């Protein structure tokens, strides 16, 4: 693996360490980590929280500076700032993440997977150790380029330092990350949230009052169903048609016309009528013409709801026309935040539009699926991540680095050295 295609005879562990030694060390770290997994009895995840993670990060960065400044003559530091150490740790991190990408990260029955901890890679000692080597390489070379600053290294510094910051802050920040979920019911204040990771109740210093929970739905879709199998019988289940009044659609040799559509309706005798009642379901009047024999039949069909059954129309021995359950377009909670001081802050929470309040980010998470648009429960999520600014600095440095890289990559041409 020499640079100039000249093979130099050298012994293992002789100066400077190359790829063989690097993979030796890296795989050694992984095996050590796996041993720790097998023999450690603790089942809890290793995390450190404030203030220890801040002290750790500060100490780690100072240590890296000291090592770089005064110990560059030592074999191990020199190795860590060289390419073989970087490439081997990138490769080995990739290998472990690949395991995570293949083995589902959920409780497993398999003894090997369980003992080696392959179903919780992110907290696996093998992963943490090799990641530590990876981050140490990254930190040392970031410091190296920072101390020997040159404008031509600007992109390099942005990419490497950005990744270092995002990774260390991300890993160390887990200990301080709080994610709570809170059920709020229409017309009732709620302040007891659940921390599902620690499985404990948390009392919030403020309460939520849900004034209104709103769901907007798309119109239901029309589908042709095989009477025997019950599965959708055209276009492999793709290309269902949105039910809209006045539209005409074609299935095989049937012409289906939508005469009327009511988003909220219930059956009265032979027909559906629009109502505004909890549990009413979408309904449409359709007429189906069999193109082969010109026979026409018409009827009301409905998607049904948690309260009323669905209704379909059997159009031949083989097929029926059904209306699917409408898909959700948008859901939102109109809430008030009530403070102990008696203040009242009104806001509307919606997916993709969280609200910031006193260091918390408040998200619209879900609702009662069964009740659908009649749900009076809204599930909120509260997230506090004090390390976020540091992570964002890292991310934005990498974005700037990527733009720089695009610009540099553009300059490579045939004749450039």
């Amino acid at each position, binding site marked *: 693996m020499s*640079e*100039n*295609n000249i093979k130099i005879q050298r012994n293992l562990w002789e100066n400077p360490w190359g790829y063989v030694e690097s993979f030796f060390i890296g795989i050694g770290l992984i095996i050590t980590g796996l041993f720790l997994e097998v023999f450690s009895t603790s089942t809890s995840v290793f995390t450190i929280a404030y203030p220890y993670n801040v002290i750790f990060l500060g100490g780690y960065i100072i240590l890296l500076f000291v090592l770089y400044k005064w110990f560059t003559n030592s074999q191990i530091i020199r190795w860590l700032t060289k*390419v073989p150490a*970087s*490439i081997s740790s*990138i*490769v080995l*991190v*990739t290998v472990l*993440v*690949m395991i*995570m*990408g*293949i*083995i*589902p*990260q*959920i409780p497993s029955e398999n003894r090997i997977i369980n003992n080696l901890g392959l179903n919780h890679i*992110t907290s696996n000692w093998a992963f943490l150790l090799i990641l530590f080597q990876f981050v140490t390489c990254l930190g040392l070379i970031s410091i190296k380029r920072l101390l020997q600053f040159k404008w031509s290294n600007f992109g390099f510094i942005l990419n490497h330092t950005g990744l270092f910051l995002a990774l260390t802050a*991300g890993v160390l920040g887990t200990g301080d*990350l709080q*994610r709570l979920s809170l059920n709020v019911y229409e017309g009732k204040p709620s302040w007891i949230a659940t921390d599902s990771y620690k499985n404990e109740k948390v009392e919030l210093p403020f309460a939520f009052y849900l004034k209104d929970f709103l769901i907007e739905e*798309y119109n239901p879709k029309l589908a042709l169903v095989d009477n025997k199998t019950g599965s959708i019988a055209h276009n*492999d*289940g*793709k*290309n*269902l048609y*949105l039910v809209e009044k006045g539209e005409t659609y074609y299935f095989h040799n049937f012409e289906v016309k939508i005469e009327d559509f009511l988003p909220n309706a219930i059956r009265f005798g032979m027909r559906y009528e629009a109502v505004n009642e909890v549990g009413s379901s979408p309904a449409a009047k359709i007429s189906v013409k069999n193109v082969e024999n010109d026979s026409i039949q018409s009827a009301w069909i409905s998607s049904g709801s948690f309260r009323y059954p669905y209704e379909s129309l059997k159009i031949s021995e083989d097929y029926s026309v059904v209306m699917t359950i409408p*898909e*959700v*377009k*948008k*859901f939102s909670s109109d809430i008030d935040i009530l403070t102990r001081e008696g203040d009242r802050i009104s806001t509307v929470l*919606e*997916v*993709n*539009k*969280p609200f910031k309040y006193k260091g918390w*980010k408040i*998200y619209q*998470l879900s609702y009662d699926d069964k009740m659908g648009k009649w749900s009076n429960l809204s599930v909120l*999520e509260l*997230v506090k*991540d004090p390390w976020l600014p540091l*992570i964002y600095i890292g*991310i934005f440095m*990498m*974005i700037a680095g*990527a*733009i720089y*890289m*695009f610009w540099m*990559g*553009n300059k*490579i*041409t*045939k004749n*450039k050295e």
Partner: protein
Amino acid sequence: MTWIDFPLYSSIIVILWIIGLVFLVVSYKKQAVFKIANALFVVGWAVMIVFVVKLWLELDRPPMRTLGETRLWYATFLPLIGFVTYARWKYKWFLAYSIAMASMFLAINYLNPETYSKTLMPALQSPWFIPHVLVYLFSYAVLAASSIVAIKGWYDNYNGNFKIETLKLADNLVYIGFAFLTLGLLFGALWAKEAWGHYWTWDPKEVWAFLTWMGYLIYIHYRYFHSQNSKQALTILALAFVVLLVCWFGVNYLPVANTSVHTYTQY
């Protein structure tokens, strides 16, 4: 409903491009006809753009939700990459490849009739949706182009006429593709923070996107420090593309798929 018009549009485009490819092959003997080939490619591409714009307008949502729609964008970006790369590097084989690949993706879409559902789930209704997907697909298209360079490099190696310029073209493409890959990944992280409360959750798609990123990271570092070991570099480049393909199509078939929020919808 524009997807219904797809057979018509795609046939026009593919016919134009195939005739163009024939002219391109002839142009190796008779340089003058290369202009005709180019004109046919550009006209075909213009038709493609018209189709994409019409589709977007009629769907009332960005056409980026389904696997078929991502293939459509891929087929749109590839010729563009072909044109720009040709302008700089003057490799006709590369232009021919990008047009042929784009035609192939149109053919796949033709054989798999797509959904033209207008619905879009709430989590996808975000200003990040369009930049995240477009940046990613552009990057995938550029990186696919770089993998073809790798194959070309192997072929040349086999025939003993490998030139280091080929790897420089690969570097050029990988740098651009990797820059966009990084942007796509980070935009995804910023979006996830807004939509799901956390920027990184090790969702299977995220895992494979990270792996793709690491794969090209290995290539870049290897090339930077071992600029003469062309064969190893070509191998890394090809392997990185395999990981990319797993990330794009393969995740759906892995045992981890049902724990993902990223599976493309079928309905």
